[in-house]
């Protein structure tokens, strides 16, 4: 039994110590870095156009979110509401199995009273707590929320970096992990902006989690590359890749359905899973091309084989 495994492993080692990674890792390393640059440029352009790095939803920009239960038609509401509230936007919430609409969410910077009154006039019935939900955030509070969440994100990033430095106690490998986490955030932001998705307070909170969530594959990679030296470096990196990619895929399996399959979930819930889905996907590239490239270069230089 053990013999079989040893033979298998030898084959495996042979396969993965192939020279091609030595040759191409620098090019592979550049792919996500290029993405990062494009993302940074895009975010700069986005900022100059919109005055901010994201599209904020009403919880961060101030305003009202009105959710009306049942199959309320957007077609009837939209033209009339647009005249009075130019910034109004709509989201459909539907069931998983039947795809039946369970509610329609209307968002606008207007006050709850104004928006409700207008919708009631158009629909011809009054909105009560039995048939609707109203969420209102004042503009000063939402500005504060936004500012604080950004500060929280920065603190989170710093704390995470400290933990990484303590863990590895050497500069280049730690910076590689931190760089990958930074790239995760920047690329995800650019993708979310490109898709035109509005971010809520919960969405920003999800970026904090992404920091914690995405670095475990980087830690796996770095510790395998630096610590266990019974096998050749390339083989260790590929071994880590096999474990790590499987980890990220199961994590994605846990978060992607929430965003893509079910829309009838609280908005905070969907936001969290949207950010994690995009962020973890970006993390696959940032960990296994960028971070792995840096570690490979570092080990070659330090003669860690």
């Amino acid at each position: 039994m053990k013999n079989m495994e040893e033979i298998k492993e030898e084959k495996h080692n042979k396969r993965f110590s192939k020279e091609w990674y030595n040759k191409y890792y620098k090019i592979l390393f550049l792919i996500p870095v290029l993405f990062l640059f494009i993302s940074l440029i895009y975010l700069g352009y986005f900022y100059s156009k919109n005055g901010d790095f994201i599209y904020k939803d009403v919880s961060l920009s101030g305003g009202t979110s009105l959710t009306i239960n049942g199959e309320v038609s957007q077609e009837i509401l939209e033209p009339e509401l647009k005249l009075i509230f130019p910034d109004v936007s709509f989201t459909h919430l539907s069931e998983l199995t039947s795809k039946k609409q369970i509610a329609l969410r209307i968002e606008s910077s207007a006050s709850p009273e104004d928006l409700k009154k207008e919708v009631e006039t158009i629909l011809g019935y009054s909105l009560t707590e039995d048939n609707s939900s109203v969420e209102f955030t004042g503009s000063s509070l939402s500005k504060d929320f936004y500012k604080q969440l950004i500060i929280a994100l920065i603190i989170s990033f710093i704390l995470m970096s400290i933990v990484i430095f303590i863990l590895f106690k050497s500069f280049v490998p730690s910076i590689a992990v931190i760089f990958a986490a930074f790239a995760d955030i920047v690329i995800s932001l650019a993708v979310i902006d490109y898709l035109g998705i509005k971010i809520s307070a919960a969405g920003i909170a999800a970026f904090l989690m992404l920091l914690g969530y995405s670095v475990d594959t980087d830690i796996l990679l770095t510790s395998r590359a630096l610590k266990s030296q019974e096998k050749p470096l390339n083989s260790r990196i590929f071994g880590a890749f096999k474990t790590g990619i499987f980890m990220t895929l199961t994590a994605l399996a846990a978060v992607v359905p929430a965003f893509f399959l079910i829309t009838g979930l609280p908005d905070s819930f969907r936001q969290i899973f949207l950010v994690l889905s995009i962020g973890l996907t970006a993390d696959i590239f940032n960990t296994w091309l960028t971070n792995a490239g840096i570690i490979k270069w570092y080990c070659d230089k330090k003669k860690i084989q």
Partner: protein
Amino acid sequence: MKIGVRIWILIIALFLAFLAIAPWKTLEKGVLVQSVEQNSSAFEEGLRKGQIITMIDGNSIESLEDFSKIILEKNYSNEKIKTLIKTNAGEFIIYSNESLGITVSSLPNTNLKTGLDLSGGSRALIKAKEKDLSSNEVSDLIDVITNRLNVYGIADVQIVPVSDLSGNNFVSIEIAGATPKDLEELISKQGKFESKIGNKTVFIGGEEDIASVCRNDATCARIEGCFDAQGGGYFCNFRFSIYLSQVAAERHAEITKDMPVNSTPQGNYLSEKLDLYLDDVLVDSLLISEGLKGRVTTQIAISGSGSGENKEDAINSAEEQMHKLQTVLITGSLPYKLEVVKLDTISPSLGKEFTKNIFLLGGVVFLIISIILFVKYKKIKITLSVILTMFSEAFLTLGIAALISWNLDAPSIAGIIAGMGTGVNDQIVILDESTSNTSISVKERIKRALFIIFGAFFTIIAAMLPLFWAGAGMLKGFALTTIISVTVGILITRPAFAEIVRRIQD
């Protein structure tokens, strides 16, 4: 198979979580008393908030519908009718002519509490307009609002101070279930306080008529003494001073100067009481001692009592009553204008849909992860142990949430699911480390896996920690459940899982 210490710890933890969540409560029948009107005969008979009504007039009550049906059939009119209520705290016979004066809700299925976004209800965040409140001012504000909501008849309400990273102080108000129509007005209106003798106003709340109220000062606000009550229990008297303005004092003299005096065993008091109103609702009636008749006195002693089953309860009750009164007198009219900065009203029926979908989602995720794991490891034992560990982690997190009465809102549940994701990740690391390198011992390999796991653990804690303070604590739940779940993982489930893997491989 011999079970090791680590697996035993997991089993015991799971058992404790089961006790904390108390899922057997689903089987309990009855309705929960949410509030009992003071001065109602139900209150006098001893019916209290938190008791469970199981039977009315011999008909068993299993649900809210049963309760409503029976109350409707009772047809309360002008004549007093008898109602026999059986609760978990004994039987009560109540004679009343209007309604029973109680509100009830259905029994909770477990000790788990869901947040407003899943159960419906309303949440408001208020702060003072153009003024930064100190923490003392915030706690005064909370007293006023709590008092006011109680007077209004809202029982199931949570009011807590919230501060954020920028040093803002807010008051957060959460009301479960039905939302009062004029909630916004109720919590942010300045409020009207009036004190009347008969129908004549003596003084109103606020600086104009009340110069000051003595509180937190034993020389002019204290518990005077405790006594055995007739028929068991204790009662304690309290007394505190308030200082009226000159104008209000003269008004008082004018109104009381011709009033007759009643002699009672407790002392001599004027024939009419001093009634305190808040927003036109009677809050309390005070006896006026004989000595104050017709006098221009600025100092008035206000007294009352509290009762309880033992002396300690009676003292607490008296102190609470005193505090309540002092609060009413000081802040009958709020000292500052309030601003509602956030107001959410969530329809309970939408919350139900959300909950249903979250369960569905849980099922889908569970299925997908099981399939992926089985495809990768091709061993039923390993797949099962990963999945069981994942569930244990979620269950233990829920147990802790039940224990600390945490309201599980949507971000909290997202935190649990994300926590399950990191848990599975860690188990994959353990599995792969333990199978990857056969030249070193299993123990050493698991040690290496633990380095990675601990690294991941500390980074996620570091990353989530700032959420406790940002955004007025609205996303605290997300950070809390994530941290609980990864901590449970590191302390309980991961060690147990490592042991299971070792046994499977040996």
